[in-house]
């Protein structure tokens, strides 16, 4: 299995902070701009999640769905996803890189070839929203053969048996979805999230990252106080949507990523 993700969490733990996990959709708003945007975000993050655009992103809210639409309309192909990953890896030899998306894209390529190309591009792990542990037979062998971690999700509806299943079948880290809903919705109650994360920890030795709905630095800081990692997606993607000018988008993303980085590092911040 990939040890790079493990090293990221060890490093963060040693520094007494949570990992910042940033998401952008590959190719949003087009493959050229996406390259600069991903590099800008990566500079502030410990792990970057690179979204593979899909025509039917059923678990995503309007913000990330629109990113998929922009990326596909701009002619983003799966080869661009790998190329963008390679570029991020080249500049950031130690950071974690996770590909995130829906089953049909890797399935269409074939999981074996997909895994080979992902590993060659420097990817550490893969998170497929619609492949639960039960359907792992379709991808597990290929991921293992190419030392890719299989990141699994847990949600407020996951009972203990599913938490144990995710611990057994997943690797790298566990991704706790902080709300019953789609990406970009409002974050759930912080006390509920804290106690659920503590409960997951009691059943598993794996790092637990929390995401879906974290939009402000204050929320990120609250979650960073108890989680191993804080995932920010829609908030970063919305910087692209809000700025049609390429430089303005880069600046806005840089500023919001810096604020999130500060928040997860335990620095004092304004709400």
């Amino acid at each position, binding site marked *: 299995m990939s040890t790079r993700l493990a090293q990221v969490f060890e490093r963060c733990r040693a520094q007494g902070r949570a990992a910042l996990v940033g998401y952008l959709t590959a190719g949003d708003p087009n493959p050229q701009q996406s390259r600069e945007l991903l590099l800008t975000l990566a500079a502030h993050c410990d792990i970057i999640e690179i979204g593979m655009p899909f025509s039917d992103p059923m678990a995503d809210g309007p913000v990330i769905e629109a990113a998929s639409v922009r990326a596909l309309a701009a002619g983003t192909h799966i080869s661009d996803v790998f190329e963008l990953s390679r570029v991020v890896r080249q500049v950031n030899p130690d950071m974690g890189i996770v590909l995130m998306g829906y089953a*049909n894209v890797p399935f269409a390529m074939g999981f074996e070839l997909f895994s080979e190309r992902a590993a060659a591009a420097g990817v550490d792990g893969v998170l497929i929203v619609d492949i639960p542990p039960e*359907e792992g037979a379709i991808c597990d062998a290929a991921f293992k053969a190419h030392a890719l971690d299989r990141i699994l999700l847990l949600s407020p509806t996951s009972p203990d048996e599913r938490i144990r299943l995710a611990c057994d079948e997943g690797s790298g880290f566990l991704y706790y979805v902080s709300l019953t809903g789609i990406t970009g919705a409002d974050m759930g109650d912080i006390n509920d999230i804290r106690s659920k994360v503590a409960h997951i920890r009691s059943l598993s030795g794996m790092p637990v990252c929390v995401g879906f709905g974290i939009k402000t630095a204050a929320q990120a800081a609250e979650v960073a106080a108890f989680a191993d990692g804080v995932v920010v997606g829609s908030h970063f993607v919305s910087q692209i949507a809000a700025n049609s000018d390429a430089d303005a988008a880069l600046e806005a993303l840089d500023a919001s990523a810096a604020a999130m980085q500060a928040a997860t590092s335990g620095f004092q911040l304004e709400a």
Partner: protein
Amino acid sequence: MSLPQGSLDHPLYHFDISHAPDAGGHFGRFGGRFAAETLMQPLKEIEEAFYAAWADPEFHRERLDLLKNYVGRATPLYHAERLTKLTGGAQIYLKREDLNHTGAHKINNTIGQGLLARRMGKKRVIAETGAGQHGVATATVAALFGMQCDIYMGREDMARQMPNVLRMRLLGANVIPVDSGSATLKDAVNEALRNWVATCEDTFYIFGTAAGPHPYPLLVRQFHTVIGQEARAQILEQAGRLPDVAVACVGGGSNAMGLLHPFRDDADVRLVAVEAAGYGLDSGRHAASLAAGTAGILHGNLTFLLEDAEGQVIPTHSISAGLDYPGVGPELALMLEEGRLQLDAATDDEALAALQQLTRCEGIIPALESSHALAAGCRLAAGMRPDQIMIINLSGRGDKDMDNVFKHLGWLEDGK
């Protein structure tokens, strides 16, 4: 799986589950439960509730009572003699699902799932709809059971099925327009799933066809097998033997599985699935996922999909909103691979012609979806002998399609 011995003998229906998927909901290499983690537990709860209900005679008593006294089952099997003469081949029998309450087969399923929702204590139901028939059938059951109801419908489909939109509203349902993607059925499913992820605690998703994540393909099939079980008994009574061919149109596969499944083990009965060929299979503008699709994963199951080489789902086209879907039920995919299913297709124009033909020669106005089965069925029947028998599933009536049909016929221009 079956009911306790002798607990519910019924002259027409039987309750065993044959050709069941594996424990994970796989039909061969198809099907399964490719769902987001948040939905895994709710899906499992529905699966458990379904198996418990299916083994409970009380559930079937209640369901069959509603199907009889509320829906109007059994629906007739009608020997269409004038259509048969006009076609000049096999004897054509029509399974009259158009005579069900709300005008299509869809209500067989919504009665079943509505009862499940009530057993599970859910206060709200949601559904996707394409033609609006499933939406109307869901809104109807919600009214009957006093549940809150939200229906997701592509804006494109709302425009072509306006009468059904208004019926749903009259029934007290909230119709939510979906603008994403192609603003048709697949996008309505996406939006319904997004809502369900956030509301699964108190909401039951009444899925409208024999597709989606496990257990939907199984339970939708089981709720619709009343169609084929009746047809089987009726043809034996009327003709003294089984049909040579059974024909149904395919959107996701619910009316097809309903008619065809009970004939599956009758090796001499040919099972024909008719897909929407839109502007023609060669045009690239159609919805024939079995004929022209490749294996893929969408909406919770592995099946045949209309997609590009990189797994992006491609826009479909059909004149009928109910067939305008890029996927198909996983069990039909398996039956096709096993050679148990014969494929056919009908274009928009052929369906329109079949609609007019049946209307003129039998006085029955079929739904555009069902007109696809009629078009292909009659073509096949023409090549058969008069001593042969074909059953065509008349899955719904055409009232909802009138505006759309008149528009295509040019009757709405300058007051002609």
